[in-house]
C-alpha cells in the first residue's frame, strides 16, 4: 500500500500515465472480450480456446503483411475471414457433438484444442516473437506518451461493441441468438433451427476474433503463448461483466486493465495481475451474476 501512496503523492504524472495506459489496455481487453462474450456469454458455450484463435489470425495477418507485403487493411480482412472459418470449424467439429453434455466437457474439449494450437504454433513457427513493423506515430499529451495504434484499437473496440449491441437487439438473427441462449429446446419447438443460429453466432464470434487480431498485431508481437497470456483475463472479463452483458464486459475490461496498469507501476506487472485475479475471485463469490447483476 505504501508504494501506491508514494506513487500518488510523489509522482502524479507517472500515475496519470499508468491510468491512461490502463485505459488503452482496457480497449484491447474489451476487444478480445467481445467475441468471447457473444459465444460464452450469450450462447453459453465454453470456448477456452478463444484467444488462441485470435493468435492464429494474428499469425496470418503477420505473415501476409510483414512477409508478403500485403497492405494492412487487406491482411486484416483475411484475418477476419480466417476467424470466420475457425469459428464455424470449432463449432461443427468440436462443439456440436458435445453440445448437450455438461459445459465442463466443452471446456475440456476446447482445452485440448488450445494445447493443439499452442504446440502446433510452436512446432511450425517456433517461440519467436513476431511483430509487424509499422511506423505509427506516438502522440504526446501533456508530457504523457500514448501509442497511436492503441488509440485506434480503442476507438474501434467502442464502435464494434456498439455494432454488436445493435446486431443483437435490432436484427432478426440477433433476436434468434438471444432466444437460443434462453432456451434451446423451446427454440426448436417453435420450428426454428437452433443449429443454424449456433453456426451464425460462431461465425460472428470468429469474425470478431479476426477483428481483434488485426488490431492487436499492430501493437503486440505474436507468439504461440499469446493466448495463454490473454486467455484467462478475457474469460474473467466476460464473467465479471455479467455473461452476455456487452456493456458490463466493457466496464469490466477497464476496471481490470486499470488495476493491472496502476498495480504494475506501483509494484510489479505480476502483482497487478495478482490483484486483478484476486478481485475476480472475490467478486465471483459476492456477485456471481457480474458487477451489474441485481442481487437475488
Amino acid at each position, binding site marked *: 500500500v505504501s508504494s501506491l501512496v508514494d506513487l500518488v503523492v510523489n509522482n502524479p504524472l507517472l500515475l496519470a500515465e499508468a491510468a491512461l495506459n490502463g485505459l488503452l489496455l482496457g480497449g484491447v481487453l474489451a476487444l478480445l472480450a467481445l467475441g468471447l462474450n457473444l459465444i460464452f456469454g450469450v450462447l453459453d458455450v465454453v470456448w477456452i480456446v478463444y484467444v488462441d484463435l485470435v493468435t492464429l489470425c494474428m499469425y496470418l495477418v503477420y505473415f501476409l503483411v510483414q512477409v508478403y507485403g500485403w497492405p494492412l487493411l487487406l491482411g486484416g480482412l483475411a484475418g477476419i475471414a480466417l476467424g470466420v472459418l475457425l469459428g464455424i470449424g470449432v463449432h461443427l467439429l468440436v462443439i456440436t457433438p458435445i453440445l448437450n453434455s455438461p459445459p465442463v466437457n466443452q471446456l*475440456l474439449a476446447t482445452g485440448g484444442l488450445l494445447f493443439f494450437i499452442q504446440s502446433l504454433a510452436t512446432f511450425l513457427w517456433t517461440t519467436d516473437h513476431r511483430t509487424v513493423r509499422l511506423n505509427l506515430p506516438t502522440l504526446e499529451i501533456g508530457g504523457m506518451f500514448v501509442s497511436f495504434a492503441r488509440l485506434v484499437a480503442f476507438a474501434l473496440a467502442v464502435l464494434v461493441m456498439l455494432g454488436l449491441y445493435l446486431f443483437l437487439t435490432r436484427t432478426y438473427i440477433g433476436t434468434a441468438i438471444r432466444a437460443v441462449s434462453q432456451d434451446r429446446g423451446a427454440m426448436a419447438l417453435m420450428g426454428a433451427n437452433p443449429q443454424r443460429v449456433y453456426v451464425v453466432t460462431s461465425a460472428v464470434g470468429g469474425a470478431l476474433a479476426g477483428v481483434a487480431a488485426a488490431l492487436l498485431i499492430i501493437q503486440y508481437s505474436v507468439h504461440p503463448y499469446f493466448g495463454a497470456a490473454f486467455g*484467462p483475463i478475457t474469460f474473467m472479463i466476460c464473467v465479471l461483466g455479467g455473461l452476455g452483458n456487452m456493456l458490463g464486459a466493457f466496464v469490466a475490461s477497464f476496471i481490470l486493465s486499470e488495476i493491472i496498469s496502476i498495480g504494475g507501476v506501483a509494484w510489479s506487472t505480476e502483482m497487478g495481475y495478482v490483484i486483478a485475479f484476486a478481485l475476480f475471485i472475490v467478486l465471483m463469490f459476492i456477485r456471481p451474476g457480474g458487477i451489474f447483476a441485481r442481487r437475488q
Partner: protein
Amino acid sequence: VSRVAGLVLLALAAAAPLVPMGGMREYVLHVIIQIFVWSFIGNAWSLMGRFGLVSLGHGAFLGVGAYTTTLLWNFYGLTPWVGMLVAMAAAVVLAVVVAYPCSRFGIVGHYFALVTLAVGEVVRLLIIAERDWTGGSLGVTLRAAGDASLVALQYADKRVFYYGSLGVWLLGLYVWHRIDRSMARAAMEAIGEDETAAASVGIHVSRFKLAITAVSAALTALGGVLYAQYIAYVNPETLAGVGVSLRIVFAVVLGGMYSLLGPTVGTALTIALSEYLRITFGVHLIGMAETIYGLVLVVFIIFLPAGIYGSVRDLLTRRRPSPARAAA
C-alpha cells in the same frame, strides 16, 4: 483373480530396478519415477474431478507444496520431512479458503473451473512477483546436501526415489479406493448430480465438498514436494499456473477419471508418447507431442468420455455405466 494379478504386477514393479539394463537403467528409472509422481498427482485431482468438481487450478497446490518445502529447506534448513507437513497444511488452507466460498455461494461446473483457474494463476504470479526469495521465473535449485541425505531427502541414486514414488503412488490408489468404498462416494455422486436434491435428503453438501477438496489438495501438494525433491529444482511454469494444471487434467481425462487406474494409464501414455517423440525426432519436433495429444484429447472428450482405461474396462466387464459416468 484381479488381486493375484495386482500382486504379481506389484512384485514386478518392486523388482524392476534390479533388472540389469546396462546404461539404460538411469533413463528407464527416470521415466518410471515421472510416471509414478504424475499419476499420483492425477489421481489426487481425479478425487475431485470424478464428482464434477473440475479444478483447473491444481497447479496452485502443486506449487504451494513444492515451494514451501524447498524454501523452508533453503533458508531455514528445515528438513523436508517436516516441510511436507507444512506444505500439505498450507495447501489444505488454500483449498478451504477457495472451496468454502465456492460451496457457500453455489459456484459449480465451469464457473468453479474458472475460479480455480484464477487461483492457479495467482499462485504462479505470486511466485514470480516475489522473485527476491523464490527466484522468480528462473526458479530455485534445492540447496544440495551431499550425495545421499535422509534429513534433506536428497539422493543421487534413482532407486531410492523409485521406491519412494512407488510407495506414494500406492498411497494415492489406497486413498482413492477407500473413498470409492465409503459413504462419501455415494454422497458426492448425489451432490455432483444435483446439489439441491442431495441437500434435501440430508447430505451435508459443504462438508463433503470441502473434505474431498482438502484431501485432493493435500495429496497434490505431497506430489509437488516429491517432484521437487526428485528434480531438485522448482520453477513456476512447471509447478504452477494454467499449463501444468491443464496437463494434469488431460492425462486423467485421457486415461479415465472414473476408474482407479485411469489416471495412471493416462499419465503413462502421455509421458511415454512425449518421450518416444523426443527420442525419435529429437529437438526438431518440439511441440509435436503436445500437438498430438491435444488432438487425441479432443477426440476422447467427444467419443470416449470415460477414457481409455475406463472404456476398455467397461467393454470387458460389460457393466452398465455408473450414473456419474453417464452424466459426463
